[in-house]
C-alpha cells in the first residue's frame, strides 16, 4: 500500500513542477464555471424553477460535476503506449501491481486537480454566486463514498477500453466516442434532470448515471435515506460488473502478449 501512496504522491509533485500550468488551471476552471453559470442563467431566462429544479440547484450540480470531472481525468492512452512500445513487459518485472500503480498515479493527478484547480475556483465562485449548502452531515459523508465509487466506475470503463489496445492498432477513436457518451449521458454538459424522459429512462440502465449524478443528488438531498443506499448499491453493482469485465479483458490481453510476444 505504501508504494502506491508513493506513486500517487510522486505524480502530485510532478504536476506541481509546472508553474504556469498550475495558475492557469485555476483561472481555466474559474472561467468555465462563470461561463456555464451564464449559460444556465440564460436558459432559465428569469424563471425561478424549471421542472421543480431551481437555478441554484443547477448551478450547484454543475459546479460539483465540473470539479469531479476535473478530478476524474486520466491519461487514457497510457496502456496503449506501454503496449506499443513494448515497455509493458518491463512493468511486470517490478514488484508492484501494475494496475494499482496505474490507479494510484491517476488518483494522484486527480487529487492535484481537485485541490489546486478546483478548490480555488470554487472559492472564487462562492464570492459571486450562491450555491446550495450540503443537506446534512451524513449526506455529505454518503456523498464522499459515492464520489469514490463514481471515480472507480469511470476508471474501469476507461480501463476496459484501454485494454483493447492489446488487440487494436489504436483505441483513440473508441476512447473519443466513449468520452462523448460520458459527457452527454453522465450529465457533464446538461444535468440529467433536463434530458427527455425516454432518454433519461435509458440512462438509468447504464453506469453513466452513477458517475456524477448520484453523488450530486445525494449532496443536494434529492435522495432520502433508503434511496441513498440503493443509489450506492447500484454503484457497487456497476463496479463489480465492470471489474469482472475489466479483469477478463486484462487477463486475456496479458495472455496474448505472453503467447505472441506483443
Amino acid at each position, binding site marked *: 500500500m505504501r508504494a502506491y501512496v508513493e506513486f500517487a504522491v510522486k505524480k502530485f509533485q510532478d504536476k506541481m513542477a*509546472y*508553474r*504556469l*500550468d498550475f495558475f*492557469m*488551471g485555476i*483561472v*481555466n476552471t474559474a*472561467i*468555465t464555471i*462563470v*461561463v456555464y453559470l*451564464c*449559460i444556465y*442563467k*440564460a*436558459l*432559465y*431566462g428569469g424563471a425561478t424553477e*424549471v*421542472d421543480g429544479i431551481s437555478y441554484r440547484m443547477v448551478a450547484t450540480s454543475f459546479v460539483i460535476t465540473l470539479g469531479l470531472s476535473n478530478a476524474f481525468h486520466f491519461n487514457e492512452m497510457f496502456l496503449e503506449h506501454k503496449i506499443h512500445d513494448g515497455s509493458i513487459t518491463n512493468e511486470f518485472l517490478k514488484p508492484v501491481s501494475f494496475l494499482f500503480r496505474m490507479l494510484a498515479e491517476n488518483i494522484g493527478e486527480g487529487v492535484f486537480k481537485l485541490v489546486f484547480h478546483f478548490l480555488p475556483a470554487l472559492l472564487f465562485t462562492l464570492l459571486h454566486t450562491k450555491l446550495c449548502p450540503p443537506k446534512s452531515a451524513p449526506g455529505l459523508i454518503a456523498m464522499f463514498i459515492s464520489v469514490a465509487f463514481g471515480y472507480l466506475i469511470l476508471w474501469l470503463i476507461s480501463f476496459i477500453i484501454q485494454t483493447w489496445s492489446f488487440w487494436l*492498432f*489504436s483505441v*483513440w*477513436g*473508441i476512447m*473519443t*466516442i466513449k*468520452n*462523448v457518451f460520458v*459527457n*452527454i449521458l453522465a450529465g457533464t*454538459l*446538461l444535468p440529467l434532470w*433536463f*434530458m*427527455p424522459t425516454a*432518454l433519461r429512462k435509458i440512462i438509468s440502465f447504464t453506469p453513466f448515471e452513477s458517475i456524477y449524478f448520484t453523488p450530486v443528488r445525494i449532496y443536494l438531498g434529492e435522495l432520502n435515506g433508503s434511496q441513498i443506499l440503493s443509489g450506492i448499491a447500484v454503484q457497487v453493482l456497476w463496479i463489480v460488473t465492470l471489474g469482472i469485465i475489466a479483469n477478463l479483458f486484462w487477463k486475456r490481453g496479458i495472455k496474448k502478449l505472453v503467447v505472441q510476444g506483443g
Partner: protein
Amino acid sequence: MGEIRVVLQSLKMSIHTRMQYRVDSLVATLAVFIRESANIIAIYLALLKFDRINDWNVNEMLFLYSILFLTYAFVVSLFADLRQFSDTIREGRFDRLLVRPRSLLLQLILNNADLIASAGHGTLGLLLFVISAGRVGIHWDFVTVLYYIGAIIGGILIQGGMFIVFSSLCFYFVETGSIRDIFYWNMRKFAGYPISIYHKLIQGILIYVVPFAFVNYFPAQYLLRKEDMANYPAIYIYIAPFVGIIVYAAAYLFWRVSVRRYYSTGN
C-alpha cells in the same frame, strides 16, 4: 514566387501520409465528428427543454455554431504545426526550420496538415449549415453570400492569428498548454453561444482579447439581426470580415519579435 510550391508540397505530403492509413483515417475522422457533435447534441437537448436561449432558437444556434466548425476546418490544416508548437521546439524541429532559407511560418503552413480534423469539423460544419441556413430567415443574395465568404476567410485569419500568438508564447514560457486551453479552446467553446448571455468581462475577452465574436457572433448577427445586437456598436457586424486581416498582421509582428528570443535561449 516558389512560396506556393513549398506549401503545395507540404499539402501533398500530408495527403500522402494519410493515404497510407486509409481505414485508420476514416475511423479517426468519424471520431472527430462524433466528439465535436457532443456540444451540439447538448445544445439541442437543452433547447428541447428550454426552447430558446436569449431569444435564439435552435436553428439560429446551429447556424452560429456552423461558422465555428467551417472556419476551424481550414485553420486546423493550415496551421496544424502550430498546435503542438512547444513539441516542435522541444524535439528540435524548429532548429531545422531555422537552417532553411525560407520564412519560418511558410515552412509551417500546411505542414503535417491535420486533414482528419479538417474532414471531421468540415463535415459537421457543412451539415449544420445545410440544416440551419434555410430555416433562419436569411435572404441569400449576392451581398449576403459575398459577406458570408468574407466572414469565413476573416474567421480563418483570426484563428490563424491566435495560433501564431500562442505559438509565439512558447518562446517565453516552457509550458503554454494551459494558456492556450483557456484562451483558445475554452473561448471557442463559449463562442458557440450568443455572447450576450455572458458576464461583461467574458464578452470583453471574446470581442477584444481573443476576438471569437468576430469569427461567428457578429457575422451571424449581420445575417440574423437578433435583438441582442443592440448591446454592441452596429459597426462591428460590418467590419467583422476585416478584423481577420488586422489580427493576423498583428500576430505576425508578435511572432517576428518573439522568434528573436529563441536565438538567445535555444531550447
